[in-house]
């Protein structure tokens, strides 16, 4: 899952970036309203963590602009101002959730998962496809009840595919979800990860659509 974190405090921004990365998110970090708006115009994110007090304006401005463009990306407001009127103003401006500082890193991750799950119309925290079961919270995957050990990247690819079964995801879409801007992408990494996934999960799970991308396999029966 690719998340944009907008926060002007360098230590906190770094903490969120590394911490959410450890929790399985791909994190892009910016520290001003202008950078946040630009990032949101260029790339698609699964969720946004937004601070309200930014050096060049209020995070609510970024939110307004986002909602003005009819983009429904879930937004989690993260702010030191967490009185009830502040919360109401934030939620009414189009935020999906609100968390006051200081917060628990794990709670931020959990709320982000909940937000994206709701955004995808899902009710269960776990993604289930045939005999595959993927739990985003614990980053655990099991096939027919047996645990399968996946790397962080492999997990992210499977997660993306299982989020929208039947939908084809292009290589660049997968790369977007896998890597922040700061990370270098090797040209064949997606292929390597898909290869590894197929080895771990067995054949008949991930299907290559030649020239387009990848999707979960159609029912063969």
């Amino acid at each position, binding site marked *: 899952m690719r998340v944009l974190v907008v926060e002007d405090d360098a*230590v*906190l921004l770094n*903490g969120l970036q*590394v911490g959410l990365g*450890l929790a399985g998110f791909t994190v892009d970090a910016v520290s*001003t309203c202008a950078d946040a708006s630009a990032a949101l115009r260029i790339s698609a994110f699964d969720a946004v963590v937004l601070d309200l007090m930014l050096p060049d304006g209020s995070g609510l401005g970024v939110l307004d602009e986002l909602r003005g463009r009819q983009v429904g990306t879930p937004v989690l407001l993260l702010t030191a101002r967490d009185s009830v009127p502040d919360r109401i103003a934030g939620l009414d401006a189009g935020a999906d959730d609100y968390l*006051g500082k200081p917060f628990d*890193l794990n709670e931020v991750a959990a709320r982000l998962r909940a937000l994206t799950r709701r955004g995808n119309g899902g009710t269960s925290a776990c993604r289930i496809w045939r005999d595959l079961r993927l739990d985003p919270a614990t980053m655990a995957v099991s096939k027919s009840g047996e645990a399968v050990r996946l790397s962080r990247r492999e997990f992210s690819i499977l997660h993306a595919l299982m989020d929208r079964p039947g939908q084809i995801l292009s290589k660049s879409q997968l790369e977007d979800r896998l890597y922040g801007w700061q990370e270098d992408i090797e040209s064949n990494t997606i292929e390597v990860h898909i290869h590894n996934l197929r080895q771990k999960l067995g054949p008949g799970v991930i299907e290559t659509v030649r020239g387009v991308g990848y999707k979960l396999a159609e029912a063969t029966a």
Partner: protein
Amino acid sequence: MTSIRSRLFLILMITTGVVWMSAIAWIYLSTRAEVERVLDARLIEAARMVSSLITSQEIDPMRAAQIPAIEPTMHASYDRQLSCQIWALDGTLVGRSDAAPATPLSDAKDGFSETLIDGETWRVYAVVNADLGMRVLVGDNMRVRDRLVADVIRGLALPALLILPILAGLIWLSVRKGLGPLNKMAHALETRPASDLSALPDVDTPSEIKPVIRSLNGLFGRVHAARERERDFTAFAAHELRTPVAGLKTQAQVALGSDDPDIRRNALRQIVVGVDRTSRLMRQLTDLTNAERGEADADGRRVNLGKLVGQLVDDIRQHYSDAVPIEIDAKLNDIYLQLDASLFMLAVRNLMENAVLHSRNDGVVRCGVRIDGDAVAVTIEDNGPGIPEDELPKVCERFYRGRNKTAMGSGLGLAIAELAAKRLGGNVSLGNRSEGGLRAELQFSKAMLSRAPRADPDRAENRAISCS
């Protein structure tokens, strides 16, 4: 005596008493003088009357002496006031009036005299009738005179003694009534809760209490403003501390949650940065409070700018080990200002820290002085990124951190510098340099400039440590 009521009561009672007593004393003296004058005149008149009666032979003194005394019907207090004796010049008593003693009332030849007879003082007037060889003495018993005066005084003092308690009661009530507004105010103040800092009502108050109410209301206003400021400040400070604390917690959780030594090391490094920043923030909060609350030393001592700036630079070097070089213009050593040194240091320190924090690694911070027109200014220049023009009006606001902020920045430095400058009677001016970087000026009026004394023992030393 602490009670105004008892004090007023006592004062009023004593003054009233004194007035009464002096009135009585005065009346006593004047009555006495008047009585003496009138009675003396009567004595003269009576003596002459008797003398003339004898002369015209209407009374035969020999016979008159034989007339038995008429027993007085009553011993009214003023009966038998006068006594008369007629003596022959050879010393035989020719005649005397009823109550007159047998001994001569006076030995005096003529006019007034006083004689003590049987323990009683007599005032006597003597007339010598040389034709008949007789001497007429008319005397007045002094005791009677004294009683007359005493009766007059008693007549005055008795009602006074009766009236005095009533007067005391009336004075007590009046004092109480008169002090009513004070009591009302005391009650209003007593019953008001500590949080109520609203003004006391100032309508229908006596003019004597008005100044008190007005100054109390002024005090309330100032306390209220100070409390508001403190409340705002506390809220703001608490709010500002939340972000660095959130950063610390997040980094701590990252360090706890990762097995990767690189990630842990990075998180711990970030925690150190965060703690440094938070402690600087707290120091600045204290500075801000001090600059705001502390009373500026109004007349200020004469301080040498070069010396103060030199101390500051040493201190900053200790705190920021990787600080860029700081150059101090030697001209600063010749500048003396009349101001509060600690506020000046506070302002310059924050401007200089700002310059150091924003400088590029290969940069240099220059501290100089500019004197022109009416102003004398300490200038601090860096070659960092400067401040975007649109942010210039806002950077001195508290907790405002612009786009070119540093990791250590709290958004308080310029606010503190400006506040301290204002307290000193100067101001802070910021501008971007055309060659890049920021130029901050701490400007003062030239009136604060103090002439350097001709022989300053400090001066040689200043020269020695300058330009480090």
